[in-house]
């Protein structure tokens, strides 16, 4: 029992630290990718190739003056970034980061917890994440912050629906709500992207919207709203908001890789590697490679597409994605009936 708890504790800490580390270096990667896509070279002063830039940014964030507006609601003002950071860190626990390690006869799955409603847990945490933005935006007592917060909430609610429908089609296909089981099913080339291409497209668009990333970054649209919901934030509270966004991006990439791209499965890997532990570790490595690709994809999209106008955003969400995702559910059902998987 005790060893079980220590093992889970260590796993939680590892997941937490890895999320933070990857989020930290995502900020660096974002600047590098942006620079490279624009024929520049990006940060290169702090350490070789600017590799220490995130540390420098972190120190800067901590050292900066902390301003809490006089007219703001102080408790809620502090609560906002806390919730944003908390919900961002909470999602990592249901994602299977790798196969099962067997050390001295004990089995150690590389997943913090495999609850049987893993996908719903993900959706639930994501839907709570909006409170961080809303509370922070409202507590600032600033019209730009409020507008940003309102935009964020309506955007996230709208896209959650299409995301939910996309996941329903996926769940119909896999027949389980557990993230680990979905991951286990995708051995070889049986990746869900092949069975659910439309669902994947809808899911990734919604993932962009849920993480408030470009082209859906209207909540923090600089040209109209200054900084959006974090206009009044400074120092590490602002850092938390920005950091939460990057953690969300990492987790979204992990979810996409797990749900649609085979998770820690790599085709034909089993033919070359026969040791189960080596296979599990290699699987994790490949999972992270997939995740990094999607993080890059998030950035790639950001530096390619311009921002949506607000009515276009709502039009896309309600009039295109939701009917499309319903259609996807119907098609999935019909195909399952035709292939004889349901009677």
């Amino acid at each position: 029992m005790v060893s079980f708890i220590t093992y889970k504790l260590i796993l939680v800490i590892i997941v937490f630290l890895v999320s933070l580390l990857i989020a930290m270096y995502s900020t660096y990667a974002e600047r590098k990718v942006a620079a490279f896509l624009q024929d520049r070279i990006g940060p290169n002063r702090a350490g070789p190739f600017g590799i220490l830039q995130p540390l420098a940014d972190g120190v800067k964030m901590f050292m900066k003056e902390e301003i809490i507006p006089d007219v703001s609601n102080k408790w809620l003002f502090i609560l906002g970034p806390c919730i944003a950071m908390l919900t961002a860190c909470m999602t990592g626990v249901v994602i299977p980061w790798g196969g099962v390690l067997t050390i001295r006869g004990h089995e150690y799955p590389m997943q913090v917890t495999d609850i049987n409603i893993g996908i719903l847990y993900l959706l639930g945490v994501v839907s709570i994440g909006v409170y961080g933005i809303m509370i922070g935006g409202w507590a600032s007592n600033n019209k730009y912050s409020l507008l940003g917060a309102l935009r964020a909430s309506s955007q996230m609610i709208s896209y959650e629906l299409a995301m939910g429908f996309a996941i329903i089609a996926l769940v119909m296909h896999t027949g389980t709500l557990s993230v680990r089981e979905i991951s286990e099913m995708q051995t070889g080339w049986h990746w869900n992207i092949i069975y659910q291409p439309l669902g994947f497209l809808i899911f990734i668009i919604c993932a962009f919207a849920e993480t408030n990333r470009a082209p859906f970054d209207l909540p923090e649209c600089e040209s109209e709203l200054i900084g959006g919901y974090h206009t009044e934030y400074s120092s590490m509270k602002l850092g938390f908001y920005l950091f939460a966004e990057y953690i969300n991006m990492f987790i979204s990439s992990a979810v996409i890789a797990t749900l649609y791209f085979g998770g820690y499965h790599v085709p034909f890997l089993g033919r070359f590697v026969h040791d189960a532990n080596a296979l599990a570790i290699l699987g994790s490595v490949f999972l992270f490679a997939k995740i990094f690709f999607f993080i890059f994809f998030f950035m790639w999209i950001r530096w390619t597409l311009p921002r949506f106008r607000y009515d276009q955003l709502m039009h896309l969400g309600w009039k295109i994605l939701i009917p499309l995702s319903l259609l996807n559910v119907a098609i999935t059902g019909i195909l399952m009936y035709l292939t004889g998987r349901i009677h």
Partner: protein
Amino acid sequence: MLTNRSQAVAKKEMTLAERLYLPAILHGLKITVSHFFKKKVTIKYPEEKREFSKVYRGTHVLKRDEIGAERCTACGLCAVACPAEAITMVAAERKKGEEKLYREEKYASVYEINMLRCIFCGLCEDACPKEAIFLTDRITPSTFKRGENIYGKNKLVEPIDKPIDISARQTQAVLEFKKHKEFAHNKVYTEKQLPNKH
């Protein structure tokens, strides 16, 4: 036609592929990723320097003559010529024994250029009858305080031991003019020939 890439604009119904937007997005992604591997245009400044034009106009220098005396005579023509009114000076009379310091009988005891106002047009250089002021290929560094941008004689006059090369700025016409040794300011003095009559 200004460019070979111009396209005629027409408002017509979009085809299905166009209305899906996805092909257009993929096209955009292709364009951006192609830039990912292109040669970067950044010049890492302190290590690498951008090549300057031969006639680049940077920070001014107040020249000394062959024996190290300041050439400026505080005539004020540069200040008059300056379109940005960046130059101010206070003239003073040369005392006995200062012949090695100042070439002319009158000199500038204070000479200031406000680098925030200066537009680096080079008109001061054209106006100078004594070949005292030149613009060089040196960059005017940024500063933390506004006051540091007002350059006095300590920053403008070239050091005696390290003369600043301005040969690139001397055009054919200037060199031609310099051949006329009968003009006072073109005379080459040695230390013995110092003119000490008032």
